[in-house]
């Protein structure tokens, strides 16, 4: 059981101040909850300032996953890390909007590069304020 869970872990990669999470398997509810706590733990451990979640491979996002994603953004925000969701498919965006999950307060970017730029810009602005 433990082994099985281990196999299905989604890797979280730390680059500089950011964590990169690339979801490349179909998300089911258990995996989503696991990922959520995994990311929050990783934020605490590494002191990351931003999290990039790449969902470009996901063909379908249901209301549970959608809520999980937006919930994670607010959780991470309390822990002083910005979450950017990257590479959402048009069909997924339409589904989420139809479901009424407009994810206010969640930042999004077209691709990983733009998401990274966005986070860097935000960090710089914060530095500037100091």
């Amino acid at each position, binding site marked *: 059981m433990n082994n099985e869970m281990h196999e299905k872990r989604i890797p979280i990669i730390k680059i500089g101040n950011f964590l990169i999470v690339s979801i490349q398997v179909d998300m089911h509810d258990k995996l989503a909850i696991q990922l959520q706590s995994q990311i929050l733990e990783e934020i605490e451990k590494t002191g990351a300032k931003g999290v990039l979640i790449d969902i470009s491979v996901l063909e379908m996002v249901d209301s549970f996953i959608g809520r999980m994603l937006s919930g994670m953004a607010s959780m991470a925000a309390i822990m002083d890390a910005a979450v950017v969701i990257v590479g959402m498919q048009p069909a997924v965006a339409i589904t*989420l909007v139809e479901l009424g999950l407009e994810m206010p307060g969640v930042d999004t970017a*077209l691709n990983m590069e733009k998401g990274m730029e966005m986070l860097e810009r935000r960090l710089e602005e914060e530095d500037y304020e100091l």
Partner: protein
Amino acid sequence: MSEKNNIDQKKDRIDHIENVLASVAAGDIDARINSDIEDDLSGIEAAIDLLIDDLTDELKQREKMQKEVEDKLVKIQEQQKVIFQQQSDLLELSSPVSKVWDNVLILPVIGTLDSQRTQVMMENLLEKIVETGCTIAILDITGVPTVDTQVANHLLKTVTSARLLGAECIISGISPAIAQTIVHLGIDLSSIKTKATLQDAMIYAMKQNKRSENVKLQSLFTDYDKREE
């Protein structure tokens, strides 16, 4: 003797009537009794002949009308085909998304919007955003005469979906009439960037572009400075 003859003759005539009726029933509409004897039976014979005449007329007329209806049906079906074809052509033609500048897409909307059209429009725009990687999309509704709740809702959905992809969607060219209806309908557009004209929207897009470029340049400079130190 003569009475017996008379009865036989009448029997023959009734048989004849029966035969004629049978052949009419079988479809031979030209069969008639055509009796030339004048007595009590001749009235019935004449009446039956008349009824058969009426029946034939009626049948002929019905056939004619049926043919007309069938012709009309074929015509209508052809017209329907043309209408469907034109409708799908129109749908394809009616939502062109073009890239007008680095990072800027424009979707000019002309004519009345219905939900089907808005749906196609929205899908096209989102596909194009992903395809080109543009982060600013301008939805120009100068050419839209009126909107209703449903259409306004669809526009909102388009803008929100674009935001979920990571692009900013600006609506330009909202006419006084549309502004009035939107406020009267109680639709909240405050979360959406709206600009008076396409020109204003373009200027805004350029500024956004410049801003992000400046930030990029700045970060390059700070990197350079750090290395110099």
